[in-house]
């Protein structure tokens, strides 16, 4: 290997600082969430305790955070499943141009770049003016899809742009129906990317704030609850909540990444040796 240049060391230092910048604040509040009962929102630590985590379990101190957590979890799963299914179907549709595909493509881009508060406001107005109940599982669900679907679709477009069509042709040549080809050939090949789409679907929904602000109705999702807390809670209890919900997100991310890793390992182990010659 050739020797590392000086620019490598400079860039590596910038990259390291960037990571500190990214993770430093989160690690800080994780530490501060263990403040003693007398501690404040910043250093110094006045003792170490689980006091603020304990307070999270007392309704009168923090409101209905566990109910909102449950709602965010269910909503996240709903959005995740819908995002995966709709994105795969959309991805399949967009492999060939069809009348209207250009318009739909620009709608997807619009959905991605439109300020979130407009979706919130518009959906909220439609529901209230037509007499429908604004609820996290209906209006909130739909609003969040306008944020998760563009990501899912862009990933699927990228996947299918790189997809080797000869696998499908082989399946068809051997008599597979269109559905069999999708079910037994296309889906297994793109499965690891589907886990990626699912990860986007869940996490973006679980953390979404602006699009649910006017569309969640009387029952808050967790980000709305946290936002409410920022205006009237001035104790480290909010750090404890932040630490827990970030920890939960990290666990979810780890589960998805491990799933992709295992799937790729399994594939490498059990994959076909076709084209590798006789050994």
């Amino acid at each position: 290997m050739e020797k590392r240049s000086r620019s490598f060391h400079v860039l590596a230092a910038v990259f390291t600082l960037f990571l500190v910048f990214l993770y430093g604040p989160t690690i800080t509040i994780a530490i501060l969430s263990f403040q003693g009962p007398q501690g404040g929102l910043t250093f110094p630590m006045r003792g170490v305790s689980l006091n603020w985590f304990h307070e999270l379990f007392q309704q009168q101190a923090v409101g209905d955070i566990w109910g909102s957590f449950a709602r965010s979890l269910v909503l996240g799963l709903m959005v995740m499943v819908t995002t995966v299914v709709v994105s795969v179907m959309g991805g399949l549709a967009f492999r060939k141009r069809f009348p209207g595909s250009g318009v739909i493509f620009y709608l997807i881009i619009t959905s991605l770049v439109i300020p979130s508060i407009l979706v919130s406001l518009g959906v909220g107005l439609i529901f209230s003016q037509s007499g429908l109940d604004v609820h996290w599982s209906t209006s909130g669900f739909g609003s969040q899809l306008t944020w998760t679907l563009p990501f899912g679709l862009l990933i699927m477009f990228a996947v299918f742009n790189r997809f080797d069509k000869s696998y499908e042709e082989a399946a068809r040549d051997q008599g597979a129906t269109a559905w069999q080809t999708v079910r037994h050939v296309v889906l297994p090949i793109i499965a690891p990317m589907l886990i990626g789409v699912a990860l986007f679907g869940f996490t973006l929904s679980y953390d979404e704030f602006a699009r649910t602000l006017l569309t969640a109705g009387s029952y808050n999702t967790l980000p709305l609850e946290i936002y409410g807390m920022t205006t009237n809670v001035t104790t480290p209890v909010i750090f404890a909540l932040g630490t827990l919900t970030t920890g939960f997100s990290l666990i979810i991310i780890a589960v998805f990444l491990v799933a992709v890793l295992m799937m790729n390992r399994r594939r490498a182990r059990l994959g076909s040796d076709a084209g590798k010659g006789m050994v």
Partner: protein
Amino acid sequence: MSNQTQAIPLDTTASTPGRRRATYGLSDAVTGWLLSLPLTLVLLFFLVLPIVMIVIVSFWGATEFSIYPAFQFDNYEFLLTSPVTYSVFLNTIKYAVITWAITLVLGFTIAYFLAFHVRTLTWQIVLFLLCTIPFWTSNIIRMISWIPFLGRNGIANSTLMSMGVIDEPLEWLLFSDFSVILAFVHLYTLFMVVPIFNTMMRIDKSLIEAAYDNGATGLQTLTNVIIPLTKPGIMIGSIFVVTLVMGDFITVRFMSGSQKANVGRLISNDIALLQYPSAAATAVVLLVTVLIVIGILLRFVDIRKEL
């Protein structure tokens, strides 16, 4: 296994009747429509209709307690004649431009390091994921996490004071333009890194070798080869960052302690006062502004080709 040994049917539509004929017989157009139907329905009900609704309501009138259908230009007239509007739009554009410039330089540097200086694919993936993971966690928590750093008695002030750089705490660290832009950079640099990294990974490495072989310096290679080839990624990243910052209201509200304004906050304040028609008019103007900016940026890149 049995059907693999069968003779290959020459005409797939002729071999079995019924279902196969139905699926294969349909034209591509109908297949495309059916497959994209769920997507189209979601976008119609939760994107197109809401925009239409906002445009309609922007012409409505409002009392203190309710809104009523009308066709009047009062909301726009009030909006476009108020000096507040212009200063708030100017402030919004200021945030967008500054954030864009910082995230561009930072994002490009990070992507450049990952794409050209990290040598193994495994390390590239690991370091890339390290940059990506915060994106999948809560934005609000990430904003809150700046408080212990930037507060009056926060880490930044106490460190600077103990080092003797300053004598008294800096007041402008939290609840200022500085903290707002810091949070934007913190939240959105990733949106620059990912598309730029993506285009850089597709640059044929032999082009760079060719540049060096012909005597180009590192800087010349960067400006004459890498940057031009990375332009599509830069454009896509710019679209993300500019639209996210222009449409934001929560970061500005939270990080400025409600002391600074942008268009998003103008809208959310109207909403809080139940002045939906006025909020809708502002929203329409914001949407038009954002779409114009996107339109300009899209002239430089074909997104469908870049995926």
